[in-house]
């Protein structure tokens, strides 16, 4: 059974069909790309899958559960994590605290033990610290652990968003333009990291990206959106050579 099965998903904003009749099937372990021109509805699709918007049509089933109508927090608990196109970090908190917040539902102790510093507090806080540092190391930003998130350079902010999403221990990771604003070297490094986390964290990844080098470099399958509808779908090389797709991109 597919990990994520999207069926005829659609949403309308005051007459505008931002996403229309989207069908998508992700197998466990897929590294899948969602591409398309500006305004095609890619981010809106992510917002539907994470419960930020409620679909006007269709459904999506994740891990055997229909998630339509579920709240973002519950969808996160089900195992879908995401990053944002417009970075949304907890800017006034340190880098490591951002990751610790990502670990919120992985490591738990009560507010009561926190207020009265019971032994559970120390035990679990140590775990928070170790786990957060371990994740930061994977992305090579552990040296910035004490920096405020808002003071990080742009590329590192993007990375931190991925680390924070990873901290929720997701089965499916949605990345919205992870390479935006990165230089070519950073992009290559990012591609390696994405491959690495897919292998080592047992992840399925769906990513939105405009950088075609990244898309053709790491995505095995693609869906192309244009004006909310699916223009092409399938193996990466096949899709990228589709005349319709080329037309949509050059036609911009």
């Amino acid at each position: 059974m597919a990990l994520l099965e999207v069926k005829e998903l659609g949403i309308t904003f005051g007459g505008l069909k931002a996403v229309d009749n989207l069908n998508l099937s992700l197998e466990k372990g897929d590294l899948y790309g969602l591409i398309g021109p500006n305004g095609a509805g890619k981010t809106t699709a992510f917002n539907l899958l994470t419960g930020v918007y409620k679909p006007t049509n269709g459904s999506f089933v994740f891990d055997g559960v229909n998630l339509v109508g579920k709240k973002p927090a519950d969808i996160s608990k089900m195992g879908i994590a995401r990053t944002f196109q417009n970075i949304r970090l907890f800017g006034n908190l340190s880098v490591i605290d951002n990751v610790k917040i990502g670990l919120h539902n992985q490591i738990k102790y009560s507010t009561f033990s926190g207020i009265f510093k019971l032994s559970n507090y120390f035990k679990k806080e140590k775990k928070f610290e170790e786990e957060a540092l371990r994740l930061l190391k994977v992305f090579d930003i552990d040296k910035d652990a004490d920096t405020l998130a808002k003071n990080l350079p742009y590329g590192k902010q993007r990375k931190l968003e991925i680390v924070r999403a990873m901290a929720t221990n997701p089965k499916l990771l949605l990345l919205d333009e992870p390479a935006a604003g990165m230089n070519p070297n950073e992009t290559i490094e990012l591609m390696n990291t994405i491959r690495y986390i897919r292998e080592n964290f047992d992840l399925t990844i769906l990513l939105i990206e405009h950088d075609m080098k990244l898309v053709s470099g790491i995505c095995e399958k693609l869906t192309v959106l244009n004006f909310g509808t699916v223009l092409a779908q399938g193996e990466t090389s096949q899709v990228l050579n589709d005349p319709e797709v080329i037309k949509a991109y050059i036609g911009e």
Partner: protein
Amino acid sequence: MSNIKLKLKPNTKNNFITYAIMLALFLSVQVLDLTGSLSSLFKGLLVPICMYVILAVSLNLVVGILGELSLGHAGFMCVGAYVSAFFSVAFKEVITADWLRLIIAILMGGLSAAFVGLIIGIPVLRLKGDYLAIVTLAFGEIIKNLANIFYIGVDSKGIHVSTSSVDDLNLLPDGKAILKGSLGISGTPKDSNFILGFILVVITVVVCLNLINSRTGRAVMAIRDNRIAAESIGINVTKYKLLIFSISAFFAGIAGVLYSHNLSSLTATTKNFGYNMSIMILVLVVLGGIGSIRGSIISAVILTVLPESLRVLKDYRMLIYAIVLIVLMIANNNEKTQIIKDKLSIKNFIKNRKNAKMSIKEGD
């Protein structure tokens, strides 16, 4: 491993400084008192100072940590003051151990305020920003006005409530009217003193600082910094908002207990439980620095002592007070003073030196 220890330090050190300041303030008051150099005027300010510190610190939880503007803090204080005073008067003869009655009164004041905070929070916390501020202000006023409407008495048959007059309570001869409408509650035992106030301040500060540095505190600050991201990570926004709102109201209620047990008669006016008071508490929070518990403590102490110290100025007192307040606010909010503060802070000095060294090492 040694790395981890280093990283826990900044918070712990910061909190330690806060506790040290509190201890220093407490000891200096004790020394001044022992040497007889405290004027009776200043002695009278000690309990109010503790009360304002508790109010400012607890409001800072909502304003600074949760990032929501609440203007109803005095309303929660009102609840704590009335409930605890009612209890203490009703049980003055029943519970003869003063300390036991006082502890129960404190808990009742805090818990009743927290409960009201929860009930008000459920509809109100859906609103944001200015809307939330205005609605909390309105709720605060409602609470204050309700306190003026009710007549409540007790007799051997139980509790009697009326909204018109004492006579309407139809009390048996063994009963007594405790809450008398706009006349309030009189005969509250004068249990408040500086030591009690200081203990309550310590409890408030310890609880708030520990809360901020816990898993819960991080979740709340995440909501403050970016609600959508916090939700996407699986944080239950409503739950944490209500929790912080109630904890904040709990301590406002405790400040109310301190207030009502410092006076023999309690009435609700605009000055003590109205929006004037709520705004005054907000001023303390803003002046001390939004989100800074230590700042709230210091500004509450200074702004309570200041108007009294200005008494020599007679008619010009409140004018000078207002001017000082404006100057302090501007100075505190000024970029240049921020830069000077940063330069003066030892922590940054060390950090800058470390950074300078690192950039030499890694610079390419």
